[in-house]
């Protein structure tokens, strides 16, 4: 690891100011950034820790949405959101292992936008709104590709509002080594329709499976999508499975999510 300066602001205003410095990098829970820095593949001049900003930590329900502070850990979401939005709390409780969940944050996960991470599916599947220190971004416009988002340089995710659906479920099929999603499918049924978000599968990162959404919006049952699976082209092929296998899993997991939604 190369040398760097470390600042730990206690307010969002201080954090915003610190992020103006040349070579500044926001630090959430460090579950991706720290290993990358240890491998000397990233060398920020200044790390701006978001862990001490009280206004960015916590879970509450507001206007029919679950609002999570950007620096809230997965462990806290798994426990504090369980009664408000059980499917999203369950998603948080399935990330990594207890050590990861105790450090990793929702803001960090969304900002990193790993194509196999869980939160991008939860956010897109819920139709979440991502609030930063400068603006609000719809989850439909947030992901712009693998490890790429609409965030500008220095922009900090302060909170995320997840509209609470009538019922929802996240089904994750784990990649055996990393235990990220080989494929993960988030299904959420709202009064005005169904959203299906898929992570782990596409070379373009998290995406909405619109054909399934259309079928399920008319008939929210596993039978409605029997035999349906997306095109294999554009799906990731790697050591752990082909694009065709991932496309197949999307169909299976979507059916399971529909059956399990509550």
């Amino acid at each position, binding site marked *: *690891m*190369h*040398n760097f300066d470390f600042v730990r602001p206690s307010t969002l205003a201080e954090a915003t100011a610190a992020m103006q410095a040349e070579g500044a990098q926001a630090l959430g829970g460090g579950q991706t950034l720290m290993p990358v820095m240890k*491998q*000397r593949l990233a060398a920020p001049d200044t790390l701006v820790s978001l862990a001490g900003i009280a206004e960015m930590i916590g879970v509450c329900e507001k206007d029919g949405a679950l609002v999570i502070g950007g620096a809230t850990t997965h462990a806290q979401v798994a426990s504090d959101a369980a009664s408000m939005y059980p499917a999203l709390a369950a998603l948080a409780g399935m990330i990594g292992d207890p050590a990861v969940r105790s450090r990793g944050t929702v803001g960090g996960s969304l900002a990193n936008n790993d194509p196999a991470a869980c939160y991008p599916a939860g956010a897109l599947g819920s139709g979440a709104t991502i609030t930063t220190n400068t603006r609000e971004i719809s989850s439909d416009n947030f992901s712009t590709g693998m490890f790429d988002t609409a965030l500008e340089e220095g922009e900090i995710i302060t909170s995320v509002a997840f509209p609470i659906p009538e019922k929802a479920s996240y089904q994750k*099929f784990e990649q*055996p*080594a*990393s235990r990220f999603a*080989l494929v993960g499918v988030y299904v959420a049924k709202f009064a005005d329709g169904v959203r299906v978000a898929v992570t782990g599968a596409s070379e373009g990162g998290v995406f909405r499976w619109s054909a399934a959404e259309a079928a399920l919006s008319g008939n929210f049952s596993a039978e409605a999508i029997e035999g349906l699976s997306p095109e294999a082209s554009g799906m990731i092929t*790697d*050591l*752990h*499975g*082909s694009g065709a*296998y991932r496309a*197949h*899993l999307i169909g*299976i997991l979507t059916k399971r999510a529909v059956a399990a939604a509550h």
Partner: protein
Amino acid sequence: MADGGIGAATKRREDVRFLTGRGQYTDDYTPAGTTYAVFARSQVAHGTIKSIDTSAAEAMPGVLAVLTGEDFVEVGGNPAGWLINNRNGTPMKEPKRPVLAHGKVRHVGDAFAAVIAETAEQAMDAAEAIDADIEEHDAVIDMKAAVADAGTRVHDELTDNVCFDWGWIEDNRQATDEAIKAAPHVTTLELVNNRLVPNALEPRCSIGEYNPGTGDYKLTTTSQNPHLTRLLISAFVLGIPENKLTVHAPDVGGGFGSKIYHYGEEALVLAAAKKLGRPVKWTASRSEAFLTDAHGRDHVTKIELATETDGTFIAFRTETYANVGAYLSNFSTATPTFLHGTLMAGNYTVPNVYVNVKAVFTNTAPVDAYRGAGRPEATYSLERVIDKCARELGMDPIAIRRKNFVKPDQYPFTSAAGLEYDSGNYDALVDGLEGLADIKGFEARRAESESRGMLRGLGINTYIEACGIAPSNLVGVLGSRVGLYDAATVRVNATGNISVMVGAHSHGQGHETAFPQVVADLLGVDPESVEIVHGDTSKIPFGMGTYGSRSLAVCGSAVYRATEKIIKKATLIAAHMMESDAEQVDFEDGVFSVRGTNKTVGFGDVALKAYIPHDFPLEEIEPGLEETAFYDPANFTYPSGAYACEVEVDPDTGKVTICSMVAVDDFGTVVNPMIVTGQVQGGLAQGIGQALLENAVYDENGQLNSGSLMDYAMPRADDLPNLVVDHSHMTRCTHNPLGVKGCGEAGAIGSPPTVVNAVIDALSRAGHDVAHIDMPVSPARVWEAMNK
């Protein structure tokens, strides 16, 4: 027998320090003035080193020295321990393996320079500043392509990429070919034994020290066999006299084979310590461990089994391509040959066996012995093709094995692959398995799985392996450049407690608990009064290390023999003390007595007398009570086992879940059943890891795709079922004094084919025409096999 002697399930005394954070590992040792080494490693798999400019690195803060391959041109290479001859009698190709790459780099991670600096961070910074001009070449990755095309060569000085083309037993080749040609049924299977990364919890670490006042060197290192490392450095690489070099392997956090071998980093820290006059430490990162620890397995095999229509085996014929990587690691040539080919008769009376092994150089990390070492490859090939054969003939997998087993009245039995099995009872093991695994109840469990939409399968496997490595006279004939005995010194101190200096290094095997049980049993003393000393060449007589499940069978036998010598000497002293003749003195439960009298003297009193010899007849009895024995086994030992596994396959996703795993093994005498159970369970976890999860994959350019734990899947607790282990159906080894066979590798040998057989069984029962799936049997591979 003393309390806590042979057969007692004593808790491991070494766990007190391991479980309370008081273990002392190599990296915990930082002598005053330590400097730090970091290696510059090749990013490409194959290239010519045009130039290395170290001037920028040398000018950086804290940098003390930058070394390159040029600095080691005059010293020797790291040799292969076994010389294998080709089928035509010519010797194998043995390219030099230098301390640092010189001329060419031959795999990703091949070290071509090293920086020594005041801190590890300064050394890392400087290593990045080394300007190496390396002209990249096409990489040699696929073994069959490497054999077919001699144009792209890993070693330019060789005529092709074939290290050797070996036949076993070459004289049996024609008879085996003819038997197969004439057989009524032949089952053929092509398979891959997947390449594995050892992933010991503790990465390699080495510290070199040099004392200019005495000229003494000390290497503290993560090693399974410090004496072999000393021998290799002294005799082959650096030429340091053995009596001027101490090698110390303190607590070692797992090896699984990967720390048997001498690595270039060890020689480098010693050379650098002399150059700088300061200690030099190197600690591998996990990434370096992935790229540079010797990998395991990596065979591509075609096996044929010829049978009568009733399932009687007529012949096994095997052709294997064995990857040795870019350089020959110390045991790499023995692993696919004498630890693999000689086992290709399995537990069976089959009359014809022939094995052809082509060892191939590739631009990948060296491949060498990894838990089981050749025997897992042999067992996997045999037991997969037998399972396929049983399916083709419509036979029960247990019945076909029983039909061909060597029977208890046939020992000693010389197998068609040339080994003489001394003891065993395979039917008894299967009898035990059928009960413990409740084979009869399988159908009910399958039906229950089916009611939940899951495909259940039952996998059966039996194995034999060769441990107690090895009889020097035999391995010498087979090409070993060393003997494979072991040594122990038993020192009875004046106050009666005992130090035992053993050649076998303990890094998870529990020697510090089990060896005292042997000594205590023989001497009738409290095992707690016996202390084991290991790992330090300056303290112990000699040792050939810990691998091949050899510690108890070979070193334990040396301990036994040395303790017998102690009893002999102590009997002389006791006879003197009781004014009798030694011939009249008996020794039992720690007490010497004169036959037909009530005269007795305790072992402790005799020990004290040995060091206070005021009235000794010095012409007849020397003072002191210390004895050394070297033990060289008469034969290999032959542990065997019968395993069963039940799996559920999710037909929607292809995911395999292991429901049960039962291992019934014959290890001969069991000294500490708790430790043995733990060894088997650890082996099972590694075997299940190979079967379902682990896979080291290089891309066509020689980049290691599974180069971190994010892509290389190690088995975790929740991947494993309850592991049921039974070692009660034992037959004694007939040729070592303890009757022990060895247990360290069995689980990793027996379990992979058991798991794969179970998966194929599950798919077959569900009507899928799937003859084989290569390991790891991942969800994607199972799904593809079901939907091909």
